[in-house]
């Protein structure tokens, strides 16, 4: 079977400080990977670096997707390839309506190329119908589409808006960066249902989370524990439960004392 995403020895720094110190991960279509780890272990850095944030300097390594090294592409090109980052803290942009933004994004990612090589935009009525369907699924009010992008959104609304974008763009690889943070239990259920409705044999998920809670709703096939810029332990869903019981400190201690990873 082919790989969705292949991360090889990825090293990334911010402001000249090395954060990722050789990350390796293979993700295949249909798989759900959870990346867990204590604060400062490099989880969010992994998400931003994969999406191509300019402040994250790639010092070494490769990230392959569909035979292309992602690291050579701009953020918009990565998105067009089918990579999606569900932000922990989505940025507000005043004056741009959700509807306008979503359609622009949809056309950029999903627009079919015409004979002139330019992407053909989806007819507005067709897009509207699609958008309303997806919003319904996430229990979002219609008026949402008229609001400005992320402006004045509550924590839950922001996360729902992120999931809404994911369901519209239908990515091949979706990275969820602490999507559970700041969500109450109802919002968490709705967001998780949105994610679960997207599970498919062609799509891969990387769920980044600090807590095990979201994994009650989104069942991972693999769980990886990240520490000091590397994955130090990988396992099945049971690893998340063990983590919940023993805590990061104990697990990290037991591994680093055995010399299995970290430096």
């Amino acid at each position, binding site marked *: 079977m082919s790989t969705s995403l292949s991360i090889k020895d990825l090293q990334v720094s911010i402001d000249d400080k090395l954060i990722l110190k050789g990350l390796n991960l293979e993700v295949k279509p249909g798989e759900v990977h959870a990346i867990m780890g204590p604060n400062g272990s490099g989880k969010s850095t992994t998400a931003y670096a994969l*999406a*191509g*944030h*300019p*402040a994250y300097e790639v010092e070494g390594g490769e990230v392959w997707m569909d035979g292309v090294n992602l690291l050579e592409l*701009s*953020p*918009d090109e*990565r*998105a*067009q390839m089918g990579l999606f*980052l569900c*932000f922990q803290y*989505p*940025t507000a*942009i*005043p*004056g*741009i309506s959700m509807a*306008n*933004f979503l*359609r*622009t*994004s949809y*056309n*950029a*990612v999903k627009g079919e190329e015409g004979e002139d090589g*330019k992407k053909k935009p989806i007819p507005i009525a067709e897009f509207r119908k699609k958008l309303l369907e997806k919003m319904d699924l996430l229990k979002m009010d219609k008026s949402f589409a008229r609001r*400005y*992008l992320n402006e004045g959104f509550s924590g839950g609304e922001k996360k729902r808006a992120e999931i809404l*974008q994911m369901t519209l*763009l239908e990515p091949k690889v979706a990275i969820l960066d602490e999507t559970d943070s700041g969500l109450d239990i109802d919002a968490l259920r709705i967001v998780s249902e949105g994610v679960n409705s997207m599970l498919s044999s062609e799509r891969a998920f990387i769920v980044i989370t600090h807590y095990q809670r979201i994994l009650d709703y989104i069942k991972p096939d693999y769980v990886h524990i990240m520490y000091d810029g590397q994955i130090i332990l990988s396992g099945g869903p049971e690893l998340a439960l063990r983590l919940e019981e023993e805590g990061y400190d104990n697990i990290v201690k037991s591994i680093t004392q055995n010399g299995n990873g970290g430096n």
Partner: protein
Amino acid sequence: MAATVDVNLDDYKYGFSVPENYAFKAEKGLSERIVKQISEMKNEPGWMTDFRLRGYKHFLERPMPQWGGQGMLNTINFDDIYYYIKPVGADKAFESWDDVPEDIKNTFDRLGIPEAEQKFLAGVGAQYESEVIYHSIIKDLESKGVIFLDMDASLREHPEIVKEYFGTVIPPEDNKFAALNTSVWSGGSFIYVPPGVHIDLPLQAYFRINAQNMGQFERTLIIVDEGAYVHYVEGCTAPTYSTDSLHSAVVEIIVKENGRCRYSTIQNWSHNVYNLVTKRAQAYKNATMEWVDGNLGSKLTMKYPAVWLMEDGAHGEVLSIAFAGKGQVQDAGGKIVHAAPNTSSVITSKSISKGGGRTTYRGLIKVAPNATNSKSNVLCDALILDDQSASDTFPYIEIENNNVSIGHEASVSKVSEEQLFYLMSRGIEEDTASNMIVSGFIEPIVKELPMEYALEMNRLIEMEMEGSVG
């Protein structure tokens, strides 16, 4: 507004010109003889000739203002400008599009006027050079007693109203450029809305400068009688020439008791035009005056639409957008004079500078001693797109009454890396993403424009933005 734009900024969209074809073109430069000649050509009454000469005298006496404009005013060569040009066939305004000469029609075709008219326009007065050559008014407006004419025609057909109000809001001695306009004015619009008449669709006019080194000095006078309403929309476009042109208009507006007037402008002069305009309105008891002012293009724009709140309960608003690119200075803002109690005002200014452009917000809030219980709020935001560009704020506030409420907020920001990254992470290309952020920034003002002007505004901003962020 994510349509891809394939017009380069350097390729100024309206930068075409048609061969000049004129019935009369005065010699270059300004003199008493030329001022008299213009008045004579137009068969004006003696009082208007005298008015012009009064303006000319003051223009000569008044020193060039030395504030604002980054010293660019001193580079204008007044002897190198044609002050009056009359195109062939411009002896009268045309009632029907079919009567308009072909070359002029081509110009308007390229500006997209007829289509616009079909869709939304209640009446079009399009100014080609110095004469208004095409004019149509919906019949029911006429039957309600609304007058919408070019200024020259109104002087012929309604001399008594023109004489009563002309120059009362902005006298010839107001400033150097108002004086210049008074002496050589030609064209512009005259609107009179009778008491209680509410004009639902905006009245619109397009102005256009075609000849090289042509000054354009239109004069607009709007009188909104008691309880009446009008929204007037003006757009300006000039072709590109290598030498400099001067545009110096005067707009006077009187809004009587309970009346309301909105005046919207989108100016998109080519990048060698000096755009020096005096706009002022007087609002009487419980009247409302709103200026919506978009300034793109030009080499130097200095423009501060003003509202004088003359009587109790009057309200004034100024919404201003300015975009300054390479080599451009946009010195814009608004002025409000609270001259009566219980008056209120809002100034909202948004400016964008890029590629070395410079924007200045310059505004005045003046509260007279008797203007008790007045309120004013000023909000000016500047967006700077790169390190070469700059923005200044000069908010003048003169308050002579203690019982007032005045607010002022100013912000300067750069397009943030986080916003760009967020949009790009959704597959949107960098240029489009920048355009979206800028569109969002000016959205509060654009949404106040009639739809087709809002679309044009966004399109113009996209063109100005093209390739600007790399």
